[in-house]
């Protein structure tokens, strides 16, 4: 998932980026500019799938998948571009998105559509030339029609699942819980054991597979032997393919070197050839080879599975060994050379994207990727983990500032000031990077998700994708399986199970609120609705996951995780030591604030009646502005450090999570191969997408305005500043949301103007960590954003700006003053 902070798109003018001058080499500058080009489609993967499926028609599924990998990698276009030091391309284009069979269902619908066509749509455009269009239309789609995972699932899904929890087939287009997010996808997210590859090489892993294979002949082995044999055979095919693929780059680099006139470039190409000849098949020997190895594995993973959030884990931890060897001990490389290599590696994450459907892309604009590098935090034994590579990553990010990779920094009480301060300088640049992960809460969440592990293991947690916390390479984390739009549940509870937008009776009959004698009755109706829908959603997810287990095996990725080899079981079938399924909650703040309004105005103060409230909501608040203002201003809201409002947010979270726990206890609603549902606050820009799901809400929200994002307060209602917001969040039972949930904070970049401001910001980060906030990301605001706030004051009432010796809410100032501040903002240089 992509965690583009919601204001990132208007970040450019008037903030730190304008006055920041990069110091990276000319090479890096050129490479950095090269990725600023339109995304193009690449059809090679689909062609290979077609070919392999024909050729290996009668093979078992897992072998077929291995053969697709083999066919694809044997024939796929490879290139080493000018200036490149790290080799390996995911698609045939300089910046490309692969088309694979699973996408043919939505491509069929959207290709050539006057609104949704990939070249026309307003976001995440992908160029498809006429020749490619013809091939997709005439060759690929006809071939894959009826053969994709989505087709298969829709064929076997029960009428009930299709109606209740599949958004694409339900007759109501506003169902509260959605379980068809993985219909067109491979399994994901996951994180390979990069450290193992770096130290043992793929050859070492191959030996392990052969050893496991040999065990099957032991007399005490009785069950599932054929499935296991097929699996190991498939893994071996993919490992051999992978090593041969790297060899193709070695050959190419050698050929290019032979023809290269410039002696310096010639030498570089020879070095690339040598590195690709050696890794990832063998252990890496130095910094360059380690980077090459990690990158090649990353490329190979995406040739095996089509998923968007395969992450890099604790990069600074497993790479430090090689940095130390090359730069500190053997001194074969300088710090600057190491940094340039890292930058060349870092930029490559931007060379590709996932082709997403029109709708799904709108949930997560920004080409859909979330390849996260995690740095910092603590070591297994509880010491500070920051090292030279941590700083090197911060320096690389500062120089590059491209959307990918996602960059997460774990912080804890022992994180040195120097690292935090460097991170703060990055925040000032306004990219929202790094995102900060507080170890204190992360470890509590680990305890919830991995109760059988120890504190040492919990300290190894990483971010997989956007905000999803897990233990690396022992977990198969199916992060993005279900979304619960909680304000919709509230709507159903207030309308006896009827959707107010389409009028259908979609939920259970939980009564007319006019008959609810107390708040307890409201809560009961809400709980009943949650219970009903969770059960249906789990059923839907179970179906999708079991269908993936039939068809979406990932033998190469399985070889890089812990569990599959030992069990002889593919990742898609529960092979990893741990398997989890992420379900997300959207609209926490809207739901909590609405309940607070009902509690206070209808039951406690008896200021209004249910008739008034229901009538106003039905009218989408039109003609009821005074009542709406009372609901907005007359009742405390979540995010202001107000115990009454915050306790409603806690209640909502706990109520929902009680159901998640209950589903986990009821094993029949989990996929047959086990695992655990884990909840999270919603991520990406789904708050905007899901705005039109519920009708008007008691908190004064007008249909179809965006919902509150993630676990942040509703837009514009938090009026007591950032410390009040983090205090409110700290009261929530977020340890139960063991998969994560970001808090987005908007700050004026004036708050980060001076060196002293940076020190204060560092203190604020430390306070956040101590308060137990798990994931925080900062938007540093540009003047464009301020102009937008002038136009739409109501949704920007929380915007804090520095006025003079004090701070004020931007929207409370007069137009003249606002312009004044905007002008000052633009003049300010640092």
């Amino acid at each position, binding site marked *: 998932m992509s965690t583009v902070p919601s204001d990132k798109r208007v970040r450019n003018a008037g903030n730190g980026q304008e006055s920041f001058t990069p110091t990276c080499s000319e090479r890096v500058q050129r490479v950095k500019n090269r990725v600023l080009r339109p995304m193009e489609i690449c059809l090679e993967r689909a062609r290979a799938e077609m070919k392999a499926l024909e050729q290996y028609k009668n093979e078992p599924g897992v072998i077929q998948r291995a053969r697709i990998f083999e066919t694809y990698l044997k024939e796929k276009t490879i290139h080493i571009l000018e200036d490149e030091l790290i080799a390996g391309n995911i698609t045939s284009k300089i910046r490309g998105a692969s088309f694979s069979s699973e996408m043919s269902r939505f491509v069929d619908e959207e290709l050539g559509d006057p609104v949704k066509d990939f070249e026309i749509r307003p976001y995440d455009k992908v160029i498809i030339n006429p020749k490619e269009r013809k091939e997709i239309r005439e060759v690929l789609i006809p071939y894959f029609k009826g053969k994709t995972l989505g087709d298969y699932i829709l064929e076997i899904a029960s009428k009930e699942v299709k109606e209740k929890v599949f958004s694409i087939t339900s007759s109501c287009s506003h169902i509260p819980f959605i379980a068809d997010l993985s219909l067109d996808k491979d399994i994901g997210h996951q994180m390979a054991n990069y450290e193992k590859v770096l130290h043992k090489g793929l050859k070492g892993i191959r030996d392990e597979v052969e050893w496991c294979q040999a065990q099957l002949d032991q007399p005490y082995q009785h069950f599932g032997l054929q499935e296991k044999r097929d699996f190991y055979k498939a893994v071996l095919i993919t490992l051999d393919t992978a090593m041969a693929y790297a060899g193709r780059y070695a050959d190419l680099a050698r050929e290019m070197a032979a023809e290269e006139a410039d002696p310096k470039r010639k030498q570089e190409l020879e070095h690339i050839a040598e590195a690709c000849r050696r890794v990832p098949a063998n252990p890496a020997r130095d910094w360059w080879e380690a980077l090459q190895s990690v990158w090649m594995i990353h490329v190979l993973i995406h040739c095996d599975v089509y998923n968007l959030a395969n992450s890099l884990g604790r990069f600074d931890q497993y790479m430090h060994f090689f940095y130390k060897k090359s730069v500190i001990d053997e001194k074969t490389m300088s710090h600057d050379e190491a940094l340039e290599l890292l930058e060349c590696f870092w930029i490559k994450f931007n060379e590709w994207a996932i082709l997403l459907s029109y709708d799904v892309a709108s949930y997560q604009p920004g080409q859909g990727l979330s390849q996260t590098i995690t740095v910092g935090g603590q070591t297994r034994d509880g010491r500070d983990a920051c090292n030279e590579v941590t700083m090197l990553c911060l320096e690389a990010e500062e120089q590059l500032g491209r959307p990918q990779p996602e960059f997460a920094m774990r912080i804890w009480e022992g994180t040195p000031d120097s690292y935090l301060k460097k991170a703060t300088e990055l925040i000032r640049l306004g990219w929202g990077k790094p995102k900060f992960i507080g170890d204190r809460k992360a470890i509590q969440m680990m305890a919830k998700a991995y109760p059988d592990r120890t504190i040492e293991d919990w300290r190894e947690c990483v971010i997989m994708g956007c905000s999803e916390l897990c233990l690396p390479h022992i977990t198969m984390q199916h992060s993005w399986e279900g979304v619960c739009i909680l304000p919709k549940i509230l709507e159903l509870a207030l309308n006896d199970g009827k959707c107010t937008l389409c009028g259908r009776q979609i939920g259970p009959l939980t009564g007319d609120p006019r008959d609810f004698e107390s708040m307890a009755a409201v809560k009961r109706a809400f709980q009943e609705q949650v219970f009903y829908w969770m059960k249906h959603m789990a059923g839907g997810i179970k179906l999708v996951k079991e269908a993936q287990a039939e068809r979406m095996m990932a033998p190469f990725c399985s070889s890089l995780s812990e569990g599959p080899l030992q069990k002889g079981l593919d990742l898609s079938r529960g092979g990893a030591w741990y398997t989890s399924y992420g379900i997300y909650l959207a609209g926490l703040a809207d739901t909590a604030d609405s309940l607070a309004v009902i509690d206070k105005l209808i039951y406690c103060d008896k200021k209004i009646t249910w008739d008034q409230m229901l009538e106003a909501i039905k009218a989408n608040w039109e003609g009821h502005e005074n009542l709406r203002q*009372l609901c907005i201003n007359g009742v405390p809201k979540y995010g202001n450090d107000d115990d009454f409002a915050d306790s409603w947010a806690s209640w909502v979270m706990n109520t929902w999570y009680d159901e998640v726990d209950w589903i986990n206890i009821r094993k029949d609603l989990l996929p047959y191969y086990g695992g655990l549902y884990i909840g999270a606050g919603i991520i990406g820009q789904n708050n905007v997408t899901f705005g039109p799901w519920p009708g008007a809400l008691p908190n004064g929200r007008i249909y179809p305005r965006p919902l509150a994002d993630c676990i942040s307060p509703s837009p514009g209602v938090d009026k007591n500043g950032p410390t009040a917001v983090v205090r409110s969040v700290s009261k929530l039972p977020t340890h139960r949301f063991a998969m994560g949930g970001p808090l987005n904070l908007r700050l004026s970049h004036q708050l980060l103007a001076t060196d002293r401001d940076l020190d204060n910001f560092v203190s604020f980060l430390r306070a956040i960590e101590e308060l137990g906030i798990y994931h925080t990301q900062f938007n540093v605001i540009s003047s464009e954003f301020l102009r937008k706030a002038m136009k739409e004051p109501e949704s920007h009432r929380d915007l804090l700006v520095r006025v003079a010796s004090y701070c004020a809410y931007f929207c409370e100032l007069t137009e003249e003053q606002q312009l004044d501040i905007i002008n000052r903002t633009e003049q300010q240089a640092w």
Partner: protein
Amino acid sequence: MTRNSVTATAKRLVLSITRMTIHNGPGIRTLILFKGCPLRCLWCSTPEAQKDEAEIALYPNRCIHCEQCVPVCPTNAIDLTGGTMSVNRAVCDNCGKCAQVCHTEAIKLLGQEMTIEELLTEVKKDAIVYKHSRGGVTISGGEPLLNPEFTQELLRAFKKENVGVGVDTCGHVPWTTIEKVLPYIDFFLWDIKHMNDEKHRKFTGVSNKFILSNARSVSERNVPLYIRVPVIPGYNDSEENIRAVCEFARDLSSLVNVDLLPLHHLGKARYNSLNLAYPIADIPLIPDDVLHNIKKMVESYQLNCSIVG
């Protein structure tokens, strides 16, 4: 808390409590503005803090003409005819009944009576933030030292909870008041508006005699001082005055910094909301280079100086 029953119930009018301010002393601080000030500076940017009584403020652009306020007004002071909202200030007694029924916050009652306990609860909320940033609370206003007993008890309560205390004062209070609270104060933000007594009277309504002598006495007691100078073009930005401030500041042994606060007109909206005239609306803002020259001048006296604003 060792308090007698009088102070436990004692209240003072609070204009606002702002959390996470970063320009009112070291670290991240909660800023409390009290109502009531003995000075009437022409350039005052917080006019709603001048009077030590609650008063209503109007924000007509928020008004949705629901007309709820009209019938509740005991003095019939509100007029909504003609499409705009106005209040006859001559008859309005600031009872605040209109604000209670105004859901859009187009009418707000400024000034809320709060007890020491209530203030302490608010301030303690950010204790973790103070700890990491070496911040705390800064009391300001208005003039925070107006009510000696209340202030003493309040600051004692802060101290007891280990909250760092800064006081932003105009300095025009009896020495006996300051003496009482000195043990609980970590630093002062001390405003010096003009060194010339006559001009000081003209621009602020009071003499600067107490302000200067109190500052000296505070310095003798070794309580850190930040001298704050609002820089108002044509009023107090002459070289002569700035040099006089510097010479005065140079003799303060506990001086930490001289803060220059350049004029801004951002208080204008506040005057409008109170239906007051803004006395210095026409003065141009001070150019950056002029301000920097003043800063250099201050620094030539071997004083630390920063521009705040």
